[in-house]
């Protein structure tokens, strides 16, 4: 495949899924003629029709709720939530219905709904447009939660999400929508990993840096900078947030003996807490310092002019790395 932007990589992934499975329908606000505010569904309505690419009324609870109904009828809806901060009106449908219907039916009912959420900050947006709410859904039993960080994963992960029988919260890092990379054109390509596998995106000996989504690039940059100072950081892209791929994670920490986890969301009760607690249980005797967390501050996401200070950057990541070594 040619080099694609992350936005286009999902677009082609959706297109492929729609061609492979006539039951796949895309729905959300402005996903049709406009192609979505991030153009992820660009051209799909033109090619698959308004019955399969549905411009919905402006009601998130019902976007998810009707998707559940469509899934019960045998369809595979992919819902687009326009921005992370607007998924909350659908929270009850996601947490009490989507996540629980299988268990409530004793495992007999499947509701394979995929909810796409452009996530995180870094694009200078106004309030409610830069939220990182993955911890809410990771804590919700009955959901699978994944987050892509680049075009290759974005394309294949959305296709994999549309092949399973479970609901999937699919995060797309806004600030990476326009970053480009080559995308494998066959599922047999070695770069195509299983959906619930973490990936070592930069091998290293000295310390494990766990992250996902928009922060992966930040952490790679940090690792590059640290390398100049002779510090060899292993960067792991979690990719799957629920379930976590603890085997890959623990293997890395057992090797390095140190661990920092970085994400955009506030650290308090964030996903980094789970990662830290789990890693500590798995690698207790091996850890030379506690798992340190770098994240957004425990405040609402700030106005755009402050986001560079709010979002963990190279300096804050390396500061945590330094603190780990100084422990």
């Amino acid at each position, binding site marked *: 495949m040619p080099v694609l932007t992350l936005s286009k990589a999902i677009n082609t992934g959706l297109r492929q899924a729609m061609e492979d499975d006539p039951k796949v*329908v895309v729905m959300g606000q402005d996903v049709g003629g406009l192609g979505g505010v991030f153009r992820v569904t660009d051209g799909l309505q033109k090619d698959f029709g308004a*019955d399969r690419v549905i411009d*919905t*009324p402006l*009601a998130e*609870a*019902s976007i*998810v*709720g*009707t*998707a*559940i*109904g*469509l*899934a*019960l*009828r*045998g*369809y595979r*809806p992919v819902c687009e939530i326009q921005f992370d901060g607007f998924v909350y*009106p659908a929270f*009850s*449908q996601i947490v*009490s*219905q989507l996540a629980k219907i*299988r*268990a*409530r*039916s*004793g*495992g*007999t*009912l*499947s509701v394979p709904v995929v909810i796409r959420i452009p996530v995180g900050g870094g694009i200078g947006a106004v309030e409610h447009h830069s939220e990182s709410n993955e911890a809410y859904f990771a804590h919700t*039993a*009955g959901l*699978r939660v994944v987050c892509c960080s680049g075009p290759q994963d974005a394309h294949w992960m959305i296709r994999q999400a549309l092949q*399973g*029988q*479970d609901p999937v919260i699919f995060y797309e890092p806004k600030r990476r929508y326009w970053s480009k990379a080559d995308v494998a054109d066959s599922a047999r390509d070695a770069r195509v990993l299983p959906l*619930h596998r973490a990936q070592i995106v930069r091998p290293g000996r000295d310390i494990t840096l766990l992250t996902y989504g928009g922060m992966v690039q930040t952490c790679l940059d940090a690792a590059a900078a640290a390398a100049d100072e002779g510090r060899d950081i292993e960067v792991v892209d979690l990719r799957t947030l629920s*379930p*976590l791929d*603890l*085997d890959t994670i623990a293997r890395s920490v057992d090797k390095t003996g140190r661990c920092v986890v970085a994400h955009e969301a506030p650290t308090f009760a964030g996903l980094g807490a789970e990662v830290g607690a789990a890693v500590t249980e798995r690698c207790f005797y091996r850890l030379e310092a506690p798992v340190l967390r770098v994240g957004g501050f425990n405040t609402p996401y700030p106005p755009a002019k402050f986001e560079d200070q709010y979002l963990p950057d190279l300096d804050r990541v390396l500061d945590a790395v330094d603190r780990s070594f100084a422990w």
Partner: protein
Amino acid sequence: MEPVQLLDPDGELSPHPRWPLDVTPDLCRDLFRRMTLARCFDDEALALQRQGELGLWLQSLGQEAAQIGSMTALRSDDYVFPSYREHAAGLVRGITPAELLIQWRGNAGSGWDPSRYRFHINTLVLAAQLPHATGYAMGVGRDGTDEIVVAYFGDGATSQGEANEAFNWAAAAEVPLLFFCQNNQWAISTPTQTQMRAPLHQRARGFGLDAHLVDGNDVLAVHAVTSAVAAQIRGGGGPALIEAVTYRMAGHSTSDDPGRYRTPGELDTWKDRDPIARLEALMVARGWLDDELRQELAAEGAALAAETRRVCRELPLGDMRALFGSVLAEETVLLTTERQQYEALVASYID
């Protein structure tokens, strides 16, 4: 606006020009039988809860006509989304007492296979099933088949955002969906006038839904109106709403104490409008209800009650371990680990 009524509280039948119904002995006997048996079942379930055999029970007492009059007007492949009080409706589809009770005994999350009965599992989060029904109906429309979808809900649920989103969405998308509201006057202790200023059928019309008000304790009126409206939806007429005026003759649930918020007098007024007594009066007047049928029904009711009691006590209790495998299509490593830890712990008690 007066609710559509064919049969008045005294059993007087007066045909309605707009809602014709061929009132045959067989139709009346069938409806009478179903309502009587539903009430026997409901009584027995109440008794079982009082004796500790069920954790909770929400009676359909008084709402038999609304549920049975409407359900019998549907086609067997029309897909139904109940709320949680639709036992009488479920019985119409042949759902068994055991299947209806197991959730309330606390043995399982739900009791029956929705695809088998075309009757979805209960939804206890108020109004949450209304977007589901809307989406399911979108699917029916896309499949181009001629089933319709029916969603039951109460007066209180109509205050929820999701209920109104569904009214609006269904109207805008013109899906084959019938919203059926049992306005039983109460939402636990909250009367309808606290929920809304204007009647629901008026609100529904405001959304662009075809809406009708019917005497929910008149099984013939409910049957007539639902039959006609269902046919209209099936014919491509778009979504509609029926508001059935009825009454919750029991407490909200076996945990409720209605004495705290409503007068005995109110209950008495509604007892005079009892849906079963009303049909009985008509049948007696027409000579459609002889002793033989009465005895037959009494026997059938007693058998159903006995059966209900028996199966309730024998309801299977699954294995906790199955829970871990019912969360996702494939058990995750975390779930497997937890299941194994759980199994190990249980095993450790044995020795």
